[in-house]
């Protein structure tokens, strides 16, 4: 049972790192980045390729860096030019990007499943109350907590963080008060994309790599974001852990219906609180 719960946290942690990037971008730009699943997948493949040549850690750094740069590019050519349009337009465009990315990955890396080994030092197993558990999985949980802690520290203490929080609540007023939302936008989308790359790469040793891996996890991270309340970082954290657990228990006990369970939870949460876990209706 302990093992199952830990596995739930592993998936929840991955989901959190991916979903919080969506929350960041949504908070600032008020658009849902459908391409986020594509970024996750691209991050995994880039991490995989570099890691096979230069080792896991170099692969991780490379993936995060490339994705951060891609984030800046996306902000410049997609989010900023379209920011005065109906959010639907941006949504459709990012959905188009997702389809293109999936095809790109399929063309470059092929359809077959690829796997990446955990880095040396983290590839062992430890015994937990009589059962074995991979060390790498514990490391993923630790990383998720680290990301959550780091992000929360950054949002609370830095000037940029303050602006991000303010913009999440009210983008228009924040812009009017002289905050440079343009530079802020590039920073935030870069961080969001980098987090997608990070989660993609650390997911590579856990999940098999395939061109559809992005869409599967994107769905769960959408559910996390909505359940958590769209703009709430804490809400996303709680929702990710909850959905990670439910997903994992579902896979173990009712494999056929595993994908439906998070949705049921979400609908229940929305009926109870239409604006998500984090907020009472205003």
């Amino acid at each position: 049972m302990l093992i199952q719960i830990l596995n739930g946290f592993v998936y929840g942690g991955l989901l959190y790192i991916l979903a919080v990037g969506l929350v960041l971008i949504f908070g600032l730009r008020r658009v849902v980045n459908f391409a986020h699943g594509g970024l996750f997948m691209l991050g995994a493949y880039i991490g995989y390729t570099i890691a096979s040549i230069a080792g896991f850690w170099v692969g991780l750094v490379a993936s995060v860096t490339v994705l951060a740069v891609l984030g800046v590019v996306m902000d410049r050519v997609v989010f900023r030019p379209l920011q005065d349009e109906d959010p639907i337009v941006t949504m459709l465009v990012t959905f188009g990007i997702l389809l293109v990315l999936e095809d790109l990955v399929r063309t470059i890396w092929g359809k077959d499943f690829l796997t990446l080994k955990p880095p040396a030092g983290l590839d062992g197993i430890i015994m937990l109350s009589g059962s074995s558990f991979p060390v790498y999985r514990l490391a993923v949980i630790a990383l998720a907590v680290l990301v959550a802690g780091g992000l929360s520290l950054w949002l609370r203490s830095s000037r940029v963080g303050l602006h991000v929080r303010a913009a999440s609540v009210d983008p228009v007023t924040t812009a009017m008060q002289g905050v440079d939302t343009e530079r802020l936008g590039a920073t935030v989308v870069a961080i969001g994309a980098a987090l997608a790359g990070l989660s993609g790469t650390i997911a590579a040793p856990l999940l098999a790599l395939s061109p559809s891996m992005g869409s599967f996890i994107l769905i769960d991270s959408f559910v996390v974001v909505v359940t958590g309340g769209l703009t709430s970082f804490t809400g996303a954290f709680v929702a990710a852990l909850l959905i990670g657990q439910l997903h994992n228990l579902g896979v173990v006990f009712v494999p056929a219906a595993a994908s439906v369970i998070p949705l049921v939870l979400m609908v229940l949460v929305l009926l109870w609180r239409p604006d998500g876990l984090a907020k009472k209706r205003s």
Partner: protein
Amino acid sequence: MKMRVLLPLLFAAAGALLPGLVGSTLLMTLLTQAVINAMLATGVGFMVRQNGMVSFGHAGFFGLAAYIVALCTTNHVVTAEFAVLLAVALPMLLAFLLGLAILRIAGVAFSMLTLAVAQSFYELMLRWRELANGDDGMAAELPPRLFGAGIAVFQTPESMFLVCWAALMVVLAGLWLLSRSHFGTLTIAIRENEERARFIGYETLLPRALVYALSAGIAALAGVMFALYNAFVTPDVLYWSLSGEALVMAVIGGTKAIWGPALGAVIFFLFKDVAGDLTEHWPAIIGGTLIVVTVLLPRGASGSLLALVERLGVRR
């Protein structure tokens, strides 16, 4: 006013003549598929037009309907006629109930959730092998006669084209009438300004859920036609690339006119036929088209067409 009734009638009649004019069965097959997809796109477009919301998951209702037809006829739970009714009614009911829960949240979140819901159906059908053979798909064992017609009527391109064409025309006419009714005006008002609609005295959630249910019902009808025509379903009918395609059709055609998405579907299929060898990269083509059309032609083909007609009219 007369023209507005006469022109569509003429158009509908012209369409019905197509099977007689087109000699090639291959082309008829393509056209039949196009009309089935036009129905699906009409459902997606109606949602945008009347609710201002974008569904990324109408394949969910389309595929669900197709599976209901296949499962009910193969397992002989109910008569095939009843199965068809059920296949339209259940997705509608589902959309209505779901709508009551998820239409209360912001538009962007709604879009995310439609995708999530459809994808969960997909995974359900993929994983639950005992129910419908998962990945391998299942054949629908249709009875020899359906609604008084031989089953061959539904499976021969020429005759099925007529059935689908007629259904599409009836749906479009129905939606046109609806858009001119009080319900049509009310839902546009809610789309434009939900808060003000409440402040002039309307309940706003129920009409929106009804629009969602109706648009799901249209997608389900397309799913029924698909199942009857092919007598075989795989989880692909639930996959999000189909939702994406339907959305692209609606965007290409434009959603301001009720018939826009259907036009978009026909353009889409002709384009697909021309693209031919490139279909290996079909997802990228769809994605690229979506980006280009959204940014450069926000009103779609129907919008551009209407603008053109208006300009010609002014000149005359």
